[in-house]
């Protein structure tokens, strides 16, 4: 809402306060003032001049030579505007004048003839092009005749006005009117309020003889008032009204349209003027539209309506879409003589639906959508009639033809002073509260500490005690509330075990050298099916899509964190950022329903993508590219840190390198995978070799125990033994290790692989794998015999099971 201060001053005296100070006051009490703008930069030495004569320039076709009386003197001015004519009153910038943009006016010679000033257009005086009335858009501005020659144009054209832009929250629809703003400002400044008069002189004729009003859809239209005004002369509206409209951001059109707009801005009540003579009957019928019914609106668009829309009809066909836009056929035009003025209350639901379906949002529909004041509907109509009498020569017929079921009562709300203080933490007295309601102009009854407050109908947002509480607090000043802390019982705050575990996992990965990322949860149709972990894929998850996505890139709820992570890797690689070690902790969304009806299961995962040099130390000739074992080491470290028994088995995962991927198992249960992204997908995604991991955090949380049980630090020495087996190349070294672990239990505490060799001396298709075993007994020192017995048993059984023999 654009609030012109010159306009506002008609209703409330704002005294010496500057526009900026007022903006600050209004902002602090609840309505944010987005900006303070001045209609135009200061213009000096611009006055009204009378064009005494206007002749062609002797040496230029398109220029005119004018003699202009500016009161004190007559100036010879050359003017190029096409609409200049003798007898006009115009805005003259005299030599020495400074126009907006620091444009200085000097005496000049144009084609050999002297010109002592400039006749101005509104644009030249700083008014935005879009507000300039069409007739003056291409030329100079012409004043109405009643202005005085020599008068400064600044006040005449409202150039000295400041406009405050109110950023209204949905509850403050009352300030979509100048009167609403006036109530607010009067309360804040504690100033008297001057409301406009709605008095109007009427003729002997009765409007009821001209029109019948019938409302069928009373639920959506509790009040409809029709005024009839005859002998209208459509012409320009008065300059002051034009100025107000321009300041409020509305372009003046003609007096009838301007008056309906002016009253809408003044009262917050949208009005509509029909050309009475173009109505096909003497009936106004308000009803729900029929499905498929059509109406050509003012903007010359044909609209197809439905039963959810409310229309004004002439008894047969629609003439307006209620609260949104009038019909083209009954539009007021230059020759209109008799106007039917509609002042009505349309329920916001009906208007909102029509706006949504037609895409027509207007100053009028916005007000209906947010709710208007039932006590200002008829009154706004009367105000408009008054102005039409004054400025359009109209004769208003007696009586307004109405359909009236509207509730105009003010809601009663009880309030006790002690409760106010208990809720706000203040020590406000009953007198203070009474004073606040007086300033706000809320009616109330007071019995010592107790109040009955009548919420004014202009403030539809006030319905309960808490609403009054806010009114009291904001007028009292949020600044004046004390600072306290809740006095309730103290409670220990802490992260839950799961929340702590999530932080631990992040910390581990960070200290392992990985950077945390956050990517989008919404992904594209190409990515939705990529790199889904086998244990999720087994659930046959269905892709969940948004019903109205903003873009194809963010349409589906992700089933894996990896595709978006890979995008961040390729994004960085495309920008020459190499050596990327990224992880993310986030949710996937799993639904098994083909037609989704319930919330998907949101499952936490931790995933990573690594690409580039894991380590490089050139002068010592050390260099290591990220490979499978780098990622596996990070995973082993993670599960070791979390004290979860992890194992890996070769697995085939779609979009992963078939020879370089593995499934991760905890306690034998599949919880994710690691490996290299399939070279085909790498190529398609513009990725250099990239290795990933993907772990189901839900399983980790389920398996993890926060308090590890104590195990005795061994007191007795351990004994090490190494064995190297030569075995078939195909045999997984890890399988043999597992066998050794099982055979060696309980004396073997640790088995590590410390060497793998393939090549000369051991035969083709063979490899040698060296294992180191650590023996230890909790209660005694082991003897050589005991170790030897276990060792021999291992050799024997591994040989039997894998046909592996000891390398000597």
């Amino acid at each position, binding site marked *: 809402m654009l609030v012109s201060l010159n306009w506002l001053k008609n209703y409330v005296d704002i005294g010496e306060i500057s526009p900026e100070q007022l903006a600050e006051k209004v902002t602090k009490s609840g309505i944010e003032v987005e900006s303070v703008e001045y209609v135009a930069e200061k213009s000096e030495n611009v006055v009204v001049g009378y064009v005494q004569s206007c002749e062609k320039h002797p040496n230029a076709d398109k220029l005119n030579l004018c003699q202009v009386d500016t009161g004190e003197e007559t100036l010879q001015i050359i003017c190029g505007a096409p609409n200049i004519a003798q007898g006009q009153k115009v805005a003259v910038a005299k030599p020495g004048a400074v126009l907006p943009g620091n444009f200085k006016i000097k005496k000049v010679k144009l084609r050999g003839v002297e010109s002592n000033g400039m006749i101005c257009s509104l644009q030249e005086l700083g008014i935005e092009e879009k507000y300039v009335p069409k007739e003056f858009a291409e030329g100079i501005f012409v004043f109405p005749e009643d202005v005085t020659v020599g008068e400064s144009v600044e006040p005449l054209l409202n150039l000295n006005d400041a406009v405050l832009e109110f950023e209204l929250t*949905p509850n403050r629809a009352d300030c979509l009117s100048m009167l609403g703003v006036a109530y607010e400002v009067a309360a804040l400044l504690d100033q008297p309020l001057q409301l406009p008069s709605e008095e109007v002189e009427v003729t002997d004729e009765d409007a009821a003889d001209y029109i019948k009003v019938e409302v069928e859809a009373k639920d959506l239209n509790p009040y409809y008032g029709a005024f009839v005004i005859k002998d209208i002369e459509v012409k320009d509206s008065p300059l002051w009204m034009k100025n107000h409209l321009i300041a409020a951001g509305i372009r003046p059109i003609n007096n009838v349209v301007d008056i309906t707009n002016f009253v809408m801005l003044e009262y917050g009540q949208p009005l509509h003027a029909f050309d009475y003579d173009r109505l096909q009957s003497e009936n106004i019928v308000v009803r729900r539209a029929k499905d498929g019914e059509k109406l050509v609106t003012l903007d010359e668009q044909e609209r197809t309506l439905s039963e959810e829309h409310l229309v004004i009809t002439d008894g047969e066909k629609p003439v307006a879409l209620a609260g949104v836009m009038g019909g083209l056929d009954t539009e007021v035009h230059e020759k209109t003589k008799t106007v039917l003025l509609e002042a009505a209350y349309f329920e916001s639901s009906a208007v909102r639906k029509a706006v949504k379906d037609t895409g027509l949002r207007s100053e009028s529909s916005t007000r209906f959508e947010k709710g208007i004041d039932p006590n200002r509907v008829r009154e706004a109509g009367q105000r408009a009639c008054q102005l039409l009498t004054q400025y359009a020569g109209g004769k208003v017929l007696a009586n307004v033809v109405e359909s009236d079921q509207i509730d105009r009562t003010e809601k009663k709300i009880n309030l006790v002073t002690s409760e106010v203080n208990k809720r*706000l933490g203040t020590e406000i007295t009953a007198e203070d509260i009474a004073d606040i309601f007086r300033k706000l102009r809320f009616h109330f009854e007071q019995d010592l500490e107790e109040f009955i407050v009548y919420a004014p109908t202009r403030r539809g947002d006030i319905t309960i005690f808490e609403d009054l509480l806010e009114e009291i607090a904001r007028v009292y000043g949020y600044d004046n509330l004390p*600072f306290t802390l*809740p006095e309730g019982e103290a*409670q220990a705050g802490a992260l839950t075990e799961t929340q702590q575990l999530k932080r631990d996992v992040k910390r581990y990965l960070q200290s392992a050298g990985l950077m945390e990322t956050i990517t989008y*949860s919404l992904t594209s149709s190409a990515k939705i099916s990529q790199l889904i972990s086998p244990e999720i894929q087994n659930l046959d998850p269905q892709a969940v899509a948004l019903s109205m996505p903003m873009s194809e890139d963010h349409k589906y709820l992700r089933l894996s964190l990896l595709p978006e992570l890979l995008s961040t890797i390729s994004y960085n690689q495309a920008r020459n950022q190499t050596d990327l070690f990224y992880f993310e902790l986030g949710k996937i969304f799993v639904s098994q329903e083909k037609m989704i009806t319930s*919330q998907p299961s949101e499952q936490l995962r931790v995933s990573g993508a690594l690409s580039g040099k894991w380590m490089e130390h050139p002068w010592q000739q050390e260099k290591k590219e990220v490979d499978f074992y780098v990622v596996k080491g990070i995973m082993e470290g993670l599960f070791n840190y979390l004290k979860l028994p992890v194992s890996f088995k070769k697995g085939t995962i779609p979009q992963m390198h078939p020879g370089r991927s593995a499934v991760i198992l905890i306690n034998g249960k599949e919880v994710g995978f690691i490996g290299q992204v399939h070279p085909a997908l790498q190529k398609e995604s513009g990725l250099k070799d990239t290795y990933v991991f993907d772990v189901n955090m839900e399983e980790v949380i389920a398996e993890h125990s926060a308090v590890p049980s104590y195990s005795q630090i061994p007191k007795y020495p351990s004994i090490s033994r190494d064995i190297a087996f030569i075995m078939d190349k195909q045999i997984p070294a890890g399988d043999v290790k597992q066998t050794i672990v099982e055979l060696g239990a309980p004396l073997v505490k640790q088995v590590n692989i410390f060497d793998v060799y393939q090549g000369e001396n051991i035969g083709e298709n063979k490899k040698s794998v060296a294992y180191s075993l650590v023996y230890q007994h909790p209660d005694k020192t082991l003897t050589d015999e005991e170790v030897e017995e276990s060792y021999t048993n291992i050799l024997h059984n591994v040989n039997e099971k894998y046909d592996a023999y000891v390398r000597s």
Partner: protein
Amino acid sequence: MKEQLETIKQEALGRIVSADELKELQDIKVAYLGKKGSLTSVLRGMGKLSKEERPIIGELANEVRETITTALEEKGQKLEELALEKQLEEEAIDVTLPGRPVNVGGEHLLTKIVEEIEDLFIGMGYEVREGPEVETDYYNFEALNLPKGHPARDMQDTFYVTNELLMRTHTSPVQARTMKEFDGDQSVKMICPGKVYRRDTDDATHSHQFTQIEGLYVGKDVRMSDLKGTLDQFAKKMFGKDREIRLRPSFFPFTEPSVEMDISCKVCNGQGCSVCKGTGWIEILGAGMVHPNVLEMAGYDPKVYTGFAFGMGPERIAMLKYGVNDIRQFYTNDKRFLKQYHNA
């Protein structure tokens, strides 16, 4: 015999002095003091001496042995020192060569801010709660006093999945869920960080996905001044103790009265500059007293229980605190961006 001992002594000492390797000292030790050494063999002849001579010679022999031993030890120590010195000299390296690099990871800036706020409120006795990102219309809107058709729903453009399911537009549904879980008769003190979604086109100031942290305190006799005090503590801890806060009335459907909180601009110290658009204040969060309808719907009697709630955007806080000027940076994950804020 006396002379013999004296000769041995002189000879041994002479050899010790000229020895320049530990090995040599070992040989000397063997040659004089060993089982077959010359001193030992002299001593072996002691039996032949008279009863009177024996203690004198014995004493002398011991003295010779001690002298040689001491000389050996001293020389040995000296040679060891020399050897160590030599070794250290050989082991010297060029300390100006670069070290072996270590990969250092780090947390995302948003995580840092979220955890900082979590820890701050945990310290004030709050618990951290989480909730689903795909919400029901009921919890996202209706339970928060936003019935279907409520004009304020327009404030939040929503990604719907079905008519009843949507991407949550704020973390407030976690409030409603928590209160419902607590069943209307215990106080609630929680914050809930999380991802939220709006139907926005991504640009420098809009993101279809962003982060929010909501706080809720419900109890008996909770006052609006408690909200003010709590927010003041938060602002001072988060932005510095010389920051001041200002509350302005505002509107949210789920609170009444509603509040917008500003902090005094750090750049200009409240004098007005381009960062605060000349106002001296910067908008940080929205808050208010929980609307009685919200309490009631969650099973709390608004005549007995009152409370306050607040909600803030970590992206906005990060942008203010660290000068990030494009919200997309948080989700693009450019390595150069991420690195800047590690250990920030």
